[in-house]
């Protein structure tokens, strides 16, 4: 699709599948991660990716940007990174004798915030405004962010020394927390073969990907996603899941209403990805882990017992009744 007319539902199905296939050409394995990131894009959310280095996070973002011909920006978060390094700053121009705004890397479609927890809270908070309000304030002047705008922040689960854990409020801004794990043996073999055959560099390039649409078409796709039908029973199911997390014994605090909203939005995107024009309880259930895992906190006892958040959430899901009709 190259014209910016609103696509039909069938066109949207086809577009999404093409995007999946295009990203799949360079991103070997990690299909679940690709799907979740696509869901976040369709649902207009941001993603927190957690995984050890070298699993193709940058490649994924590049590939996604290339898919819709969008801009891609990357910030490597370090302890000395300043907020203005993220947003941009005003610069006095001697020639024109006026202040010029130099826009920061945040003015992009897809922003990869690498190792976000390495920067202090002040710099992390600079991202908050743009993530929530889709606007950036430089020297008191608001600037709108590009559309679509999506932040993919990464965290390294090891090497926690000298990091600043993201505050709850900021974590809540991320629609999904995606865990990226090592590829399977076959996938890794395929990956090694693909990277080493006929290439000089040791990274995969996104040249193989051709743009499926323009960046300006993405909002239309997001609008279609937002109009996927959701039955009352499914709404009820999603809300019940989130509410159960607040009383669940394994959690010291559960997820807020933003989680219910995110859950339904992701479920809608999931349905679109499954080429359905309606959401089933399965879409909700499958999205629950990624949507809730960063919004709940385990109790101290559970942490001492070595229970993982995902385990507790899975256990909780077993106690939530599926929709009754």
């Amino acid at each position, binding site marked *: 699709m190259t014209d910016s007319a609103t696509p039909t539902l069938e066109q949207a199905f086809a577009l999404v599948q093409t995007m999946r296939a295009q990203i799949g050409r360079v991103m070997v394995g990690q299909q679940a991660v690709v799907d979740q990131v696509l869901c976040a894009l369709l649902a207009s959310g941001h993603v927190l990716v957690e995984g050890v280095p070298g699993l193709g996070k940058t490649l994924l973002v590049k590939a996604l940007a290339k898919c819709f011909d969008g801009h891609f920006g990357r910030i490597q978060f370090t302890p000395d990174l300043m907020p203005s390094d993220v947003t941009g700053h005003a610069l006095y121009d001697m020639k024109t004798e006026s202040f010029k705004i130099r826009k920061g890397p945040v003015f992009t479609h897809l922003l990869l915030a690498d190792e976000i927890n390495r920067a202090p809270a002040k710099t992390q908070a600079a991202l908050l405004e743009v993530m929530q309000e889709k606007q950036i304030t430089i020297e008191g002047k608001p600037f709108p962010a590009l559309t679509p705008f999506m932040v993919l922040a990464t965290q390294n689960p090891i090497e926690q020394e000298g990091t600043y854990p993201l505050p709850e409020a900021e974590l809540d801004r991320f629609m999904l927390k995606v865990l990226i794990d090592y590829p399977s043996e076959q996938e890794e073999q395929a990956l090694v073969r693909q990277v080493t055959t006929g290439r000089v560099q040791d990274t995969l390039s996104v040249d193989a990907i051709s743009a499926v649409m323009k960046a300006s078409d993405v909002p239309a796709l997001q609008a279609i996603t937002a109009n996927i039908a959701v039955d009352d029973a499914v709404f009820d199911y999603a809300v019940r899941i989130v509410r159960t997390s607040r009383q669940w014994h394994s959690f010291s605090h559960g997820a807020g209403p933003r989680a219910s909203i995110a859950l339904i939005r992701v479920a809608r995107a999931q349905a679109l990805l499954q080429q359905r024009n309606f959401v089933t309880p*399965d879409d909700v259930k499958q999205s629950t882990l990624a949507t809730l895992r960063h919004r709940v906190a385990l109790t101290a006892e559970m942490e001492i017992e070595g229970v993982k958040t995902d385990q507790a959430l899975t256990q909780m899901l077993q106690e939530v009744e*599926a929709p009754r009709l």
Partner: protein
Amino acid sequence: MDLGKITARVRPRNPHEAADLGIVMARQWFRPLLLLGVLPSFPLMLLLFILFYDQPWWAALILWWLKPLWETLQLQFIAEALFNPQMQWRTVMQQARQHLFHDFFAKLLVQRWSLSRSFNMPVGELERLKGSARSRRLSTLHRDASSTSVWLTLLGNTIEGLLVLGLFGIVWMLVPMKLEVDFEFADLLDSPFLFPTLAWGAYVAMALVSPFYVCSGFMLYINRRTWLEAWDIELTFRQLASKPLQTSSNGAAVLLLLALPLLMLPTSESRAADTLTPEQSQQQIIEILEGDDFNEMKEKKGLRWIDPERRNEKQDDAKEDSFIARQLKKLRNWLRNSATVATVLDWLGALPKLLEALLWGTVIALLAYLIYRFRHMIAPGWLGEASLAKAARPTHLFGLELNQKSLPDDMLTHARALWQQQRQREALSLLYRAALSQLVHQDHLPLEDCHTESECVTLCRKQVDAPRTAYFQLLTRHWITLAYAHQLPDNASFEQLCQQWPTFAASGVNV
């Protein structure tokens, strides 16, 4: 064993003196004793160290466990050397095999853990006693001196530990003062050389301490026998018997002359005894017993308790007692007669029993808790199966009544009738409900409330054959589309579902 050749001065000593004598002996024969310890153990240690290269503490531990083997050799040597100072260690080495493997398993398994091992060893190794004979002998010997041998073991262990620390200390002290050693104590703990060094240090300490340990234990044993069998007296007699003969041969004639009247004496006495009647003898015995020799009077002063029976008899004496003694007696009487005190004493008497019961209760409760807590490790699926069985037949799923009784007898006709009446949702719901009921009751599918529709299909795929799964999948798809997308299936699809139903239900009972 010829007591006459003993090289140590034999006299009854207290256990500490005996152990001390053992130390002196170990110093005297330190070289052969050390060789006897190191020669068999060093190759073994080297082998074990190579075998357990990654975990060198295993080598030290195994060597420690095998220690009684070469201590046997050391014991054999010292036992011989005590009577024969010219004893060579090579002689013991030549007989090493029979000494090492004598009572091998008992030495390493049962006797290994005794704290008085050094003291017990001679009984097994030198007297060659086994089983009940050994334990009887030990019980006789243990009445005294065993506590010293226990302390000897503990002291030996402590010295071994101190030696290991000392070895490290020496290395530390030998580091020149001007050399700036810049590392933390924790770095030392992480060092890959730590455990090998510790293992070898422990080995050296064991080798150095064992001669002293063996000799002290052996001397404790010899001392105990000196007490029991009066070796010192025997030796004195022997010396008495041999001295005159050795010093002057003509003295023997004098001795004989002197001894003659003595030799005569028993004869005259026995002749006198023959003339006495038993009564006379009795009388004589009584006279002798009443004589001064048997009735020495001694006066002792002190405080002591008097039996209650004798209290009355002694009441008069009590008046003469000191004030403190009177007060103590009063206190004693009050304690004996007071009911409260008796109850308290009874209660206190029952306290150990109570504590024991409490302790056992705690142990049992703890065990029960541990079994419950780690039940999934002990018997996986133990509780899981129980809960599965419980949940195996839910009566409701997704708000649908699944009880077979709640379904109409002729389900298909009923469903078709509902479809005709434009109550399509009810018709499809009935069909889906019947299918679920079939899966739950006939195929024993472990469906739970939390399972979504597609999870039911996945479970069905695992347990039910392909054609039936395909039917259930189709039915589920229609049901989901109707329920969540509010899209009705067309008549043909519904009719197809109805027609295939009997095949699906065929394996179960007629619904």
